[in-house]
């Protein structure tokens, strides 16, 4: 299938009515068609869709005493009166807004960038209800042969999005993309040992459904649910910890979108350029061009072509993430990271949000650590954290922490018994010389995996603080 043509013209229709308005302004429009299937242990519980949402957001940038006043308003009403109401709302809020940018220029055209990344699942685009029904069938089929694990709860949601962008500088562009949101709870129960039931809970954001992967995934998920039944809490202490890609996905984008962006720099909460923020030799990129990544797109939400940016080179802070306004305020140029999504890219209606700098996909290239087994050997003694509960790093301090949902003790360079309970946490990115997740990376695995907002290999991090069931130990290092 070729890339589908965008037929929605939401932004263009609104922009036509805004031509008399003083520049600069832009309009971001979306037509979103959502389908969902929700299921429980006995099969499908609820089928939803089409859930149709068409809307747009208008942004006005007005000079104000050497600064810029930002006006923004959004609506689903594309009638003449609806657009007039939105415009009046944006003009009203601009009177009370102020941002330290001056003479802001919006892009006049989507310039030559990398070829557009693959972001449309053709099966979802053509017939989402059928694709979701087939995927759900494949999910339940994958567990039919499992003696002690089954699906207990979940949903698969698809969004077919036509995004359009127009501005006062003449830019008019648009692209189609699909999004998949998956939630599956796997329960392991029964058996002669009488252990309580165990669960492995999966959530993910992606561009496409991959039903062919379900048999392999079902086997993995079942094992984690099974092992959760007899897992014990971990020991307490500063331990060697292996963090796989799905755990890093929940930690890195949210922290780095603030700390390594214009947001943090403007508020003097970012590391200085060239500061040592990660272990020597660690490279970390933001890459908006990766095929099938949820953060990829031909252009950012201000119309700047996507590219790859080096945020950390050989352990030192390098480029920062900028949108048009933050770049202007800090004397730089936009890096194409003007996104209308949350810091973790889970925003549902981008048209209703104002752009701001954020990560697209956090990427760490393959290191020399080898396979998972070699990484475990290198850890010697420690823990493989398979899943932690909502580590939710706070962007300002970059502190993160969460309960270990399932993991494995590493003993003598080999995976040993499962662990569950207790917490693991620390800083993602600390001041130079202080311990942190990035500064304590000792081995980088050799097989990056794309999952949600990251494309990273597993990392061996030395000295992360783990709190388990032991008698209280020494206070963790600051």
């Amino acid at each position, binding site marked *: 299938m070729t890339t589908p043509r965008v037929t929605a013209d939401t932004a263009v229709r609104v922009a036509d009515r805004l031509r008399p308005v003083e520049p600069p302004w832009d309009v971001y429009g979306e037509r979103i068609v959502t389908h969902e299937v929700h299921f*429980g*242990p006995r099969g499908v519980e*609820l*089928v939803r*869709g*089409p859930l149709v*949402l068409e*809307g747009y*957001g208008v942004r006005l940038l007005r000079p104000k005493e050497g600064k810029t006043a930002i006006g*923004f308003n959004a*609506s*689903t*009403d594309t009638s003449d009166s609806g657009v007039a*109401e*939105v415009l009046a709302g944006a003009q*009203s*809020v601009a009177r009370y*807004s*102020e*941002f330290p940018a001056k003479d802001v220029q919006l892009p006049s055209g989507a310039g030559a960038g990398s070829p557009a990344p693959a972001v449309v699942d053709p099966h979802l685009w053509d017939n989402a209800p059928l694709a979701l029904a087939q995927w759900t069938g494949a999910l339940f089929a994958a567990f039919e042969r499992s003696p002690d694990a089954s699906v*207990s709860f979940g*949903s698969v949601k698809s969004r077919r999005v036509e995004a359009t962008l127009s501005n006062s500088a003449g830019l008019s562009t648009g692209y189609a993309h699909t999004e998949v*949101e998956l939630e599956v709870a796997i*329960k392991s129960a029964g058996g002669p040992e009488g252990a309580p*039931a*165990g*669960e492995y*809970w999966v959530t993910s954001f992606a561009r496409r459904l991959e039903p062919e992967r379900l048999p392999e995934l079902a086997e993995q998920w079942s094992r984690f649910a099974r092992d959760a039944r007899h897992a014990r*809490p971990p020991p*307490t202490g500063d331990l060697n910890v292996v963090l796989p890609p799905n755990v890093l996905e929940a930690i890195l984008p949210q922290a780095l979108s603030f700390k390594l962006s214009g947001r943090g720099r*403007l*508020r003097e909460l970012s590391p200085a350029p060239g500061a040592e923020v990660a272990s020597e030799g660690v490279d970390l990129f933001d890459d908006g061009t990766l095929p099938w990544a949820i953060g990829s797109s031909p252009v950012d939400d201000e119309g700047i072509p996507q590219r790859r940016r080096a945020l950390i080179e050989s352990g030192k802070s390098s480029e920062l993430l900028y949108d048009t306004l933050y770049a202007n305020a800090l004397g730089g140029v936009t890096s194409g990271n003007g996104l209308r999504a949350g810091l973790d890219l*889970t925003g549902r*209606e981008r048209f209703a949000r*104002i752009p701001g700098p954020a990560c697209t996909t956090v990427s760490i290239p393959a290191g020399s650590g080898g396979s998972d087994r070699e990484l475990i050997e290198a850890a010697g003694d420690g823990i493989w954290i398979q899943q932690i*509960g*909502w580590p*939710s790093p*706070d962007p*300002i*301090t970059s*502190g993160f*922490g*969460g*309960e270990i*949902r399932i993991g494995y003790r590493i003993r003598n360079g080999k995976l040993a018994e499962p662990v569950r*309970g207790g*917490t693991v*946490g620390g800083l993602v990115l600390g*001041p130079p010389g*202080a311990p942190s997740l990035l500064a304590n990376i000792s081995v980088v695995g050799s097989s990056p995996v794309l999952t949600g907002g990251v494309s990273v290999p597993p990392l061996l991090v030395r000295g992360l*603080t783990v*709190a388990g069931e*032991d008698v*209280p*130990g020494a*206070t*963790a*290092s*600051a």
Partner: protein
Amino acid sequence: MADLRDHEVELRRVLQRVGAHAAFAEVMAQASQGESANIDSKSRRATTSPHIAGAIIRAWAGARWVEASSSSFDAKSLAAVADGLERDLRAARSSDPPPGESSTTVGESVARPARPMREMGLESEMERARDYFRWSMDVPGIKNVQAWVAWWDDERFYLNTAGARCYYVSGRVRANIAAIAVENGRTEFDYDSSGAIGGQEILEQMTEERARTLAQETVALLHAKSPPTGAMSVLLDGGTTGTFAHESFGHGTEADQFVRDRSYLKPILGQVVGPESLTIADDGSIPGAWGSIPFDDEGHRSGKTLMIDHGRFVGALHDRDSARALHAKATGNTRRSDFQSRAYVRMTNTYVEAGDWSFDELVQEAGDGVLLEHWTSGMEDPLGGQMQIKVRRGRRIEHGKLTDLVSSMALSGTVLRFLKDIRGVGNDNKFRMDSGFCGKGHGDYLPVGDGGPYLLSRAVVGPA
């Protein structure tokens, strides 16, 4: 604000069309309107909430629910929704009636605060945010302050084929301050907020004294020690106790998970699970509380549900499906985030009732451990019975006395064990209902209230 009742004719028309092919159908129209004023040391920003409104139609297809929505009330868009649902309903193989009891409630509730936020205006809202900013920013050692004022009116209109007709408008108001302090490369922040249903009076709860205290406590965090790690006595402040109630017997008793056999609590309904002094309830009818709703999104009136009554696990939160499956009554806890989101069993205001221990007695009883203050988030494990709560700050407790200030922590533990280990419930009858947002699974966030007194138990603590 447009009145959704103006669309009643169109909504009834589509309900009638869909209802002709189903044993039951319902429609929920929803709209919101609001503003916010944000300020920090580098920028000021005012916003008005998006003008997003629409309707969702749900029908029983004999063996499962089907639903579709539109963000437009025009006849063509609503007809397209009906077309799709009719196709699904014709394909249904069963004409069995829907589970549970269909609401026949007829009622209206339009909040009319003495000083509604819609009359305040953005200029005054920005001025109020500027006050919050200045009060905290003036404290020596503060690097930056983010202060904001936000409000929105949530309007919902529910109709079903059994005759229910429910309409309400609720206005939620929130004042927030986050203070940031930096010294020698160390960054700390803390927050304070007030949120409730009402009008401009809620903004006055955030006083200069509160703002300054927050800032002073944030600066003090720069010299806080790292938290102790491991299993120990934990004393939760009121907000953290509320988060415990929410994560443990709140999510744990959302009975849709009982029906799926996905709750560790289902087999122990009726048993004693905690001390006599422990009572946990959910109440969506508390006037002015952040999570209150006059009617739920199945047309049931909200009310109080006891989950733990003096230590005994006595009840759960139900929608019509779970009520039918478990021989109970719907409790008025079926909620949608908005017109695009599905209806789930959800909490409203969840809290622990006051006990009879003074704060000093609790600290002394703790012996050695940690006091946890200023919750930031929580998470539950409905099948495994684990929970996680994160806080910004606390104090060590040594030999029955409060000692060193410690910075952010995560608490983790098994709920049933935590309950058994409860050694005291505080006697603070003046606890406030905190305002927060709760998701189900990975999304569907909606406003909920949590509260409680100080509570002493035992859990694992680590850095966060």
